[in-house]
C-alpha cells in the first residue's frame, strides 16, 4: 500500500461509481441527482444530516434498492442486475440491522464464511477485532461496540474489495468510537476501499480522504475535509476582550470580514486569513494592545452548517 491512497488515475480505478442517481418514495425525492466516484483504496465519506438520503444512496450501491434513474457501478458491475457478483466484492454493515439473538459470534462467522468461495480466515479477523474472548457469546448478550465489531468482521469475512459502513459508530461511547476509527484505518491499510456513511463531523474529518456532503437528497459539496473547511464562508475567527478600543465599523470594513459581534464579553470577527492580516495591520496602525486575542480555524462543523444551511432551518 503506497502512502498515496489515490493510486493511479481515479477515473479508471473507480471502485464505486454513482452517476445522476435519483430515488423517490411516493413522490418524495429522497435522492436527487447525486454523482460521485470512489477510487480504489480510498476512504470516502458520505456526510449529511439525518434524513438527507445518505442511507438510500448506499442502499442503491449495495443493490438493496433499484434507482429510479441514473447508474450505479461497483467494480464496473450493476448492483441490481449483477447482484450476486457485487455481493462477492462488496461487504456491508447496515444501519440498525441485527442478528438472531441466540446466534453466537463463532456461529455467525462460520455461517457467513460459508457464503463465499474464498473467505477470509475468520480467526484472523476475530483476533484483529478483539473478539476472541466473545466467540461463545450470543449476539443478544454483546455490547454495542462488540456488535459493531462483529458486523465489521462479517462485512470483511468474504474478502471484499470494498466495504460500506453505515453509521458505524452511532450509539457507541467515545472510547469505543475511537477504537472503531482505528479499525477503519486498518481496513484501508489492508487494501479495502471504504464507503463510510456518517453524520459525525469529527469522524469524517479524521478518517475520510474525500467527503460528499448530501443535504435534502442533493450533493451539496464533494471535496477533501480541508477543502470543505476552506469553503466555509469564514475560515478564521478572531476574538478578543470586548473593552478593546476599536470601532465596530472599522472591523466590519476589514477585507472578507463576514460578521462582527460581541458575546460573553468578547468581540468576534469572522473572516479569512486576509481578514486576520488586515486586523494585525489595523492594530499596528492604531497602536492598540488587545487582550486575550485568539485566532481559531473554522471546523468541518462550520463548513457543514454553511453548506447545508442546517442552522437556518
Amino acid at each position, binding site marked *: 500500500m503506497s502512502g498515496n491512497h489515490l493510486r493511479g488515475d481515479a477515473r479508471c480505478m473507480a471502485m464505486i461509481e454513482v452517476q445522476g442517481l435519483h430515488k423517490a418514495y411516493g413522490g418524495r425525492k429522497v435522492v436527487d441527482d447525486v454523482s460521485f466516484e470512489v477510487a480504489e483504496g480510498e476512504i470516502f465519506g458520505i456526510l449529511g444530516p439525518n434524513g438527507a438520503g445518505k442511507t438510500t444512496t448506499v442502499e442503491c450501491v449495495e443493490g438493496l434498492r433499484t434507482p429510479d434513474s441514473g447508474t450505479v457501478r461497483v467494480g464496473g458491475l450493476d448492483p441490481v442486475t449483477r447482484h450476486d457478483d457485487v*455481493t462477492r466484492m462488496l461487504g456491508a454493515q*447496515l444501519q440498525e440491522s441485527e442478528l438472531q439473538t*441466540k446466534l453466537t459470534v463463532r456461529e455467525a462467522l462460520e455461517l457467513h464464511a*460459508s*457464503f463465499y*468461495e474464498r473467505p477470509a480466515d475468520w480467526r484472523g479477523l476475530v483476533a484483529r477485532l478483539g473478539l476472541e474472548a466473545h466467540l461463545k457469546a450470543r449476539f443478544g448478550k454483546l455490547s454495542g461496540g462488540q456488535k459493531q465489531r462483529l458486523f465489521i468482521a462479517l462485512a470483511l469475512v468474504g474478502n471484499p474489495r470494498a466495504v460500506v459502513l453505515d453509521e458505524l459508530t452511532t450509539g457507541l461511547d467515545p472510547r469505543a468510537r475511537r477504537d472503531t476509527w482505528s479499525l477503519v484505518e486498518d481496513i484501508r491499510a489492508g487494501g479495502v476501499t471504504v464507503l463510510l456513511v456518517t453524520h459525525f463531523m469529527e469522524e469524517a474529518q479524521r478518517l475520510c480522504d474525500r467527503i460528499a456532503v448530501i443535504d435534502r437528497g442533493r450533493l451539496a459539496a464533494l471535496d477533501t475535509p480541508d477543502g470543505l473547511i476552506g469553503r466555509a464562508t469564514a475560515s478564521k475567527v478572531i476574538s478578543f476582550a470586548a473593552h478593546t478600543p476599536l470601532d465596530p465599523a472599522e472591523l466590519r470594513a476589514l477585507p472578507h470580514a463576514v460578521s462582527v459581534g460581541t458575546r460573553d464579553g468578547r468581540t468576534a470577527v469572522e473572516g479569512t486569513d486576509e481578514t486576520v492580516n488586515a486586523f494585525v495591520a489595523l492594530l499596528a496602525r492604531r497602536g492598540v494592545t488587545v487582550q486575550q486575542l485568539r485566532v481559531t480555524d473554522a471546523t468541518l462543523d462550520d463548513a457543514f452548517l454553511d453548506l447545508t444551511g442546517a442552522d437556518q432551518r
Partner: protein
Amino acid sequence: MSSPATSGAEMLTSPSATTMVLRTEARLFAREPGSLFWMMVSPTVLLVILGLIPSFREASADLGGRRVIDLYVPVSVLFALIMSGLQAMPPVLAGYRERGILRRMSTTPVRPASLLTAQIVLHAAAALGSSVLVVTVGRLAFGVLLPENLAGYVLALLLAVACGLALGAAVCALSRTQKIATAVGSVVFFPTMFTAGVWVPVQAMPDTLRDIVQLTPYGAASQALDSATSGGWPGWVPLGLMALWTVVLTATAARWFRWE
C-alpha cells in the same frame, strides 16, 4: 471466472452454504425450549390428559362404536400442525424481517429466501415429529389402532402440514411487524382449533356445521385423516381442498410478503 475449476468450486460452495444455513437455524430452533414444548410436547400432553378420562376410553354408539380417544389422535395431530405452522413460525419469520436479518443476508451471495426455507423445513419437521409422537403414544398408552391406510394417512398428513405452513406464511406476509404476526396468529388460532375439532371432534359435529367445517383447511384435513385411519382412501375432495388451500395461501404469501 468461467474456468471448470471455478464452476466446480461454485457447485461445491452453494450446497454447503445452504447446509450451513439449515444447520445454524436448526441450532437456533433447539435453543427455544418454550416453542419446542408447544410444538413437540403439548399435543401429546393434550391426548394423554383426555385419555385419562375413563369415559373417553369407552366405545360410544354415537361415534359408530369408536371411542372419544380414537377421534382425538387425529385432532392432536392437527393441534401439532397448528402449533408449529400458526403459533411458532409466523413470529420467527416476521422477527427476521423486522430485525433486518433478511436484509443483511441480501448483501451476501446467499439469498434470504434460504433462511425462510430453512425455517419452513424445520417447522415442518417439528410438526411431523410431533404427529409421530402423538400416534405412537396413542397406540402404546391407549391402544388406538394405527392408521389402516398408511399411505393415505401419510399423504393426508403431508398435505395438512403444507397447508398449515402456508397458512402461517400467509399470516406472516400480511403482518407488517412481529407483534402483528403474533396477534393475527392468535386470532386465526381459535377458528383453526375449532375447525380441527379440538373442542368438538369434526365427526361429532351436527351435519350442516360439519359440511361447512370440512371446507376449511383443517376441517378437510380432519376428514382426510379420519378416513385413512379407518382404512379408507382419504377421498379426493378433502385432499383436493387441502391442495387448493395450500396453493392459494402460498400464492398469497408470495404475493404479499415484504422483505423489509
